[in-house]
């Protein structure tokens, strides 16, 4: 019984992490209809920035996290303004090729700068180890992830639903022409959203170094997970990808624990079945955009 609860807890932490990593992609892919396979590269950038700050410069872990966010967002907005912008109207094939190219470049560049081995971020002592609650082992680090990611999710939902920026974004996505006719600066809204999504990915990358492992092949290894979250979750709201991440996280942890021999088999099968059953995602709109 307790092992089930511990697994559930780990799965939720894993799922929350996936959500923070992938929710930027949910916006670019789901809302802006841009296939960004290089999303993992932004996460990796954040992770490496955090690693360098903490391990080499002796920054405290919690001070390095915001910087991971800021640096990934900065890279994101730079690339958006210079490169991505030109590709919004191009075919999916072009977008796929372009972002695969970027991913290859990021992998080789990080390999060149930091070496190809896995890196670890030195965690403060307060985050290490685990404690028991009614016999259920709770990892401190995972608890922190759940808290941070939970707050972020609630914050995101509030921003999207309640603020002026949120309604502008929803308007820009629903009908860019009408939105710009109403005086909304659509490219600016998209650029800002893109940068914010990249920043979140960077934060997720910094947080995930401990759990998922951080090495130059991160963007390729986890690309499929991000895509699963978005395609399975659908794009109509932020709750879809959130539930999909939780499902994926719990499914993956449980699959690895109970049927270790099947490995990633469970996840891929689940994804294909869901996509066949509901091509627009579990929580997606019924009509194709």
């Amino acid at each position, binding site marked *: 019984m307790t092992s089930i609860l511990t697994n559930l807890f780990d799965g939720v932490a894993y799922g929350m992490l996936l959500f923070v990593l992938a929710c930027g992609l949910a916006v670019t*892919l789901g809302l802006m209809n841009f*296939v960004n396979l290089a999303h993992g590269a932004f996460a990796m950038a954040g992770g490496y920035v955090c690693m360098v700050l903490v391990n080499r410069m002796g920054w405290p872990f919690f001070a390095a996290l915001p910087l991971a966010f800021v640096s990934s967002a900065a890279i994101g907005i730079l690339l958006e303004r210079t*490169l991505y912008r*030109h*590709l919004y109207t*191009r*075919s*999916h*094939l*072009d977008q*796929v*090729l*372009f972002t*695969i*190219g*970027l*991913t*290859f*470049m*990021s*992998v*080789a*560049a990080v*390999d*060149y700068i930091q070496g190809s081995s896995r890196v670890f971020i030195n965690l403060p002592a307060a985050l290490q180890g685990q404690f028991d609650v009614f016999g259920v082992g709770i990892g401190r680090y995972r608890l922190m992830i759940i808290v941070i990611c939970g707050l972020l999710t609630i914050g995101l939902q509030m921003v999207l639903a309640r603020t002026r920026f949120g309604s502008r974004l929803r308007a820009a996505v629903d009908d860019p022409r009408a939105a710009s006719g109403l005086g909304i600066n659509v490219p600016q809204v998209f650029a800002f959203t893109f940068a914010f999504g990249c920043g979140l990915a960077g934060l997720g990358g910094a947080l995930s170094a401990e759990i998922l492992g951080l090495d130059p092949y991160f963007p*390729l290894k986890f*690309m*499929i997970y991000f*895509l*699963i979250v978005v*395609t399975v979750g659908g794009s109509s709201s932020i709750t879809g990808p959130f539930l999909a991440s939780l499902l994926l996280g719990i499914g993956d942890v449980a699959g690895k624990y109970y049927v270790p*021999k*099947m*490995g*990633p*088999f469970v996840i*891929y*099968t689940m*994804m*294909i079945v869901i*996509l*066949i059953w509901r*091509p627009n995602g579990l929580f997606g709109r019924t009509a*194709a955009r």
Partner: protein
Amino acid sequence: MSASSDVGYHAQRQARWHYGEVAFWLVVLACGFAFPTRYLIMTDILRLALFTMSLDLILGYAGIVSLGHAAFFGVGAYAAGLLALHGIVKEPVLALIVAGLAAMVLGFATSFLVIRGVDLTRLMVTLGIALLLEALAERFSNITGGTDGLQGIEMQPIFGEIPFDMFGKAGFFYSLAVLFLLFLFARRVVHSPFGLSLRAIKNNPLRAAAIGIPVNRRLIAIYTLAAFYAGIAGALFTQTTAIASLDVFAFERSADLMLVLVIGGTGYLYGGLIGAVIFRMLQEFFSTITPQYWQFWIGLVLVVIVLVGRQRLHRWVLYVPNLIIKQVAGRKAVVAVPESDS
């Protein structure tokens, strides 16, 4: 002239062999005799060309975007490896066909998943299938040899007559023959009414359905055929290198394949062949500069190609050849400019 006979006239004229095409194949054959020390790399290029042609059939002609074409390559490779290793089918040509058929069966089975949904779903499903097969191959390591791959494959002589030599000469001409035969068939297919209907589907599936083309059945057919081609390419890989390892399923293989096709140009069969030559030369060039980081430059090439625009690039590349051809054979004989794809 009535409209239908007009269409037929143009279709037939397109399907005729040009001098340029004959010259192309003669040059390829001549390479086999001109560079006797380079058989291994040339065989590699031929294999890649066949594999790319397979992707071109579904992407360039039918408009199905696939990120997991390596799945069929891998199935062909392992099938050929297992057949040779356990001595089930000893004769290479027969084993090649059996391996191709194995991939074809998989292609047929998965085509039902692929024809559903839009581009994005297709990308995900094809990628998922390739990853699934990779995970399966890793899981059943007692059959596939796991991460070590299949080892100790010994190839029997072709037709029981021509043995594979260590310089790869037999392998090269064997691959060339296979490629040429499959090319002839693909050429016949894409210029047939069937091939024309595929282009109609690619341009506008709804309209194609409205004029009476059974869209789904055509897509299933071409996807299955492309799987057969990819399986043959994979089997050639195993037969000429005598190894099959897990990386035949790797995502990088599918991604590189896209690059090869894009370099060569989608929607005309020579695109794959030309792309394979250029890609391998680029790869050799980059890996002599930076042995470890050639992937960076390959990525850069992709980004630049997309930013410049594929059509514009192909116009530049074909500018000089077309100029020469115009001088020699007149205005009509211009090399096919790749079709635009939306």
